[in-house]
């Protein structure tokens, strides 16, 4: 009997093995190099300025994005805002457009020269990442029982309810958003590079590109590794037992009290969307003065377009499947209950992709691994090492919403563990699968720093092409290629949205588990 039970978990163990092989070797390299460390070596590198700049960038980005996302979240999360769908879809644009394109748009709009301090860089990054805390805040608000506010209405005014009841209830979501923004900003390579800011990531990248010295790279990154470890531990505590990312934007739930009147909400929403998202992009795309330029650029970039679509789609699909299997196993085996395990699993996600790429080069750049290192598979390993911990966590949250009795009823209906997973769990995880597929897809398409370090010769993604063009290319060509990039991002998203709509219409998505229809 024991053998059969083991057999039914084979697929999960295989996925777990992939997870271990992809995610943890870079972390082990970091730990080994840390053990060899000499204190004098760190002091001699002179890292005060890069660190100061990195911290300014990450802090500015976190605070500024909170300033944008909190009021917007309170608007979209309130019950009186009936149809937030359009706004929510439009607010996906900053996440979809790669940060370096947003940076370029803003530079061309105001500065016209590729210079700007760390504060400017932080603001640009906040404009790219603010939808993350926004969705978290909306997600948190939609889970608040409106009776909590209704009971407070008897003794408090609207502002007091907001500050004393609503915001304290969603603080874990706000804090999670801030930590994620901090991590994304401190590890972002493309924007500081375009703005010419000497920060930790750019130093890490340039030092490794010149010297190929692993130990020195790890030394440079030590304080950042400590920050990342601390933040991943904090993140683990905050999101423990919490559904933290959700597509649940049904208008029936959500907070009741809002300090904004209805018309003010719409005006505020439109102003923010126009100023932050559409205006800079329109200014970039107005550079395309003729269709001929567009046609020529499309023809030149077709190969990159093809590489981008194939690599990101196959990578996302593979990593999503591993995420589904591992996320299910981690949730059902109660991995997330342990704070330390939480932090260990999330730690690789908090590390900069440039550092991961450096470690991956050290591990896989050997003759026996040439089948991996000299092919695009190395990109999937890099993306997996960075994003698998996050997507597994997201899937685990979706699994936690499926009552365990559904699976037990399956077992009692003569289904094996694998068939329960296939017939009951997987269909109910449909929306989670779409979410992580889409997330990995856009993150891999936009990723530049780590990809530049490990991409095999002869392969060029659109991101890399645009990133190179930004440094020495014509703005018209950059704008035209950017359209291709946005197209490549929109194709699968449109497909997924159609699928999601069909699922919702059929009432088949996992959200329907909790729907009270009758």
């Amino acid at each position, binding site marked *: 009997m024991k053998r059969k039970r083991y057999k039914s978990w084979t697929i999960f163990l295989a996925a777990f093995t992939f997870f271990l092989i992809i995610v943890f070797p870079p972390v082990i390299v970091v730990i080994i190099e840390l053990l060899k460390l000499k204190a004098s070596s760190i002091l001699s590198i002179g890292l005060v300025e890069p660190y100061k700049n990195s911290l300014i960038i990450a802090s500015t980005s976190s605070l500024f994005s909170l300033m944008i996302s909190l009021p917007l979240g309170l608007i979209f999360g309130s019950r009186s805002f009936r149809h937030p769908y359009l706004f929510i879809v439009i607010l996906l644009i900053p996440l979809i457009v790669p940060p370096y394109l947003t940076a370029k748009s803003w530079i061309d709009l105001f500065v016209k020269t590729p210079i700007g301090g760390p504060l400017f860089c932080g603001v640009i990054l906040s404009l790219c990442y603010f939808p993350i805390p926004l969705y978290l805040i909306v997600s948190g608000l939609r889970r608040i029982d409106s009776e909590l506010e209704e009971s407070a209405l008897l003794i408090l005014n609207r502002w007091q309810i907001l500050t004393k009841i609503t915001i304290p209830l969603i603080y874990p979501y706000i804090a999670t958003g801030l930590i994620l923004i901090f991590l994304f900003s401190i590890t972002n390579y493309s924007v500081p590079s375009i703005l010419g800011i000497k920060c930790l990531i750019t130093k890490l990248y340039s030092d490794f590109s010149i010297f190929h010295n692993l130990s020195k790279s790890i030394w440079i990154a030590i304080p950042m590794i400590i920050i990342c470890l601390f933040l991943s531990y904090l993140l683990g505590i905050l999101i423990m037992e919490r559904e933290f990312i959700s597509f649940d934007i049904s208008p029936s739930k959500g907070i009741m009290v809002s300090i904004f009147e209805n018309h003010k909400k719409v005006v505020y929403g439109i102003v923010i969307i126009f100023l932050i998202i559409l205006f800079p992009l329109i200014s970039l795309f107005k550079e395309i003065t003729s269709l001929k330029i567009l046609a020529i650029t499309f023809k030149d970039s077709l190969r990159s377009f093809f590489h981008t679509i194939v690599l990101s789609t196959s990578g996302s699909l593979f990593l999503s499947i591993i995420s589904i299997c591992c996320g299910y196993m981690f949730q059902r085996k109660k991995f997330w209950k342990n704070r330390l395990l939480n932090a260990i699993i999330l730690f690789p996600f908090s590390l900069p992709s440039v550092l991961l790429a450096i470690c991956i080069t050290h591990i896989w750049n050997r003759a026996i691994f040439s089948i991996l290192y000299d092919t695009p598979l190395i990109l999937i390993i890099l993306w997996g090492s960075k994003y698998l911990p996050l997507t597994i966590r997201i899937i685990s949250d979706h699994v936690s919403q499926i009552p365990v009795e559904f699976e037990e009823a399956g077992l*009692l209906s003569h289904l094996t563990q694998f068939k329960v997973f296939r017939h009951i769990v997987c269909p109910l995880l449909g929306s989670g699968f779409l979410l992580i597929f889409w997330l990995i897809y856009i993150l891999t398409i936009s990723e530049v720093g780590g990809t530049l370090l490990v991409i095999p010769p002869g392969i060029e993604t659109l991101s890399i092409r645009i990133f190179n063009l930004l440094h020495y290319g014509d703005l018209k060509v950059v704008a035209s290629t950017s359209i291709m990039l946005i197209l490549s991002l929109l194709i699968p998203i449109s497909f997924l949205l159609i699928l999601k709509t069909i699922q919702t219409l059929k009432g088949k998505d996992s959200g329907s588990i909790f729907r009270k*229809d009758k």
Partner: protein
Amino acid sequence: MDLYLEKINKRYGKTPVLNDINLSLKDGELLTILGPSGSGKTTLLRIIAGLERPNKGKIVISGQIANNPDILIPPQRRDIGMIFQNLALWPHMTVYENISLGLRNRKKKINNNDINKIVFQVVERFGIKRYLDRYPTTLSMGERQRVALARALVLDPGLLLLDEPFSHLDWNLKDEFLDLIKSLNTTIIYVTHQVFDILRLNSKVALLIDGKLEAIGKPEELINTTSSKAKDFLRCLSLYKDRNFNS
């Protein structure tokens, strides 16, 4: 199907949930397990179903050991049907798919025509034929209960476990379901905390309090119990009984 439980013990961490439970049930017998909330009723059912493993003890189903320190027969091989408190109907499948999934995945393969025949027989019996293409979330509570019963019975289980499935039904509907349960020709364990159910079923009753089986017998025999806990509990129940019948 005969069922025999010997010295079943279960603890969660350091908290004991079940203490030395001994129980035997003959083929076709109906047993009602009565007890206050948190007394271990659901845990006992889950252990019998194989969804949880006891820390100690032995379970014998139809003469075959299903559970002891060395052996664990998984739930799908125990020939047991169970109706959960929340019914656990799969929301992404239609009523037909919910009922037929178990038949389709049986070790002994059945062809589609036979599956349809069996499903139609069951749904006709429970009056849910017109809901076959509907999703469970679009049905009323009573209709969902019928679907859950049909799903459990379509596999013709030797033992049916019912974990307070009718607790949120109104009296009329509950009455109807209890009649249905009585008419089933299979071994049944029915868990409840309501005295109305035991009076209506008039079956053998096991009194489970704080993880211990305090008394077992016909409702009228329970009055003679010597356990003080059982006496206290029955006193509470008679109060409920009076209230229910007065109103």
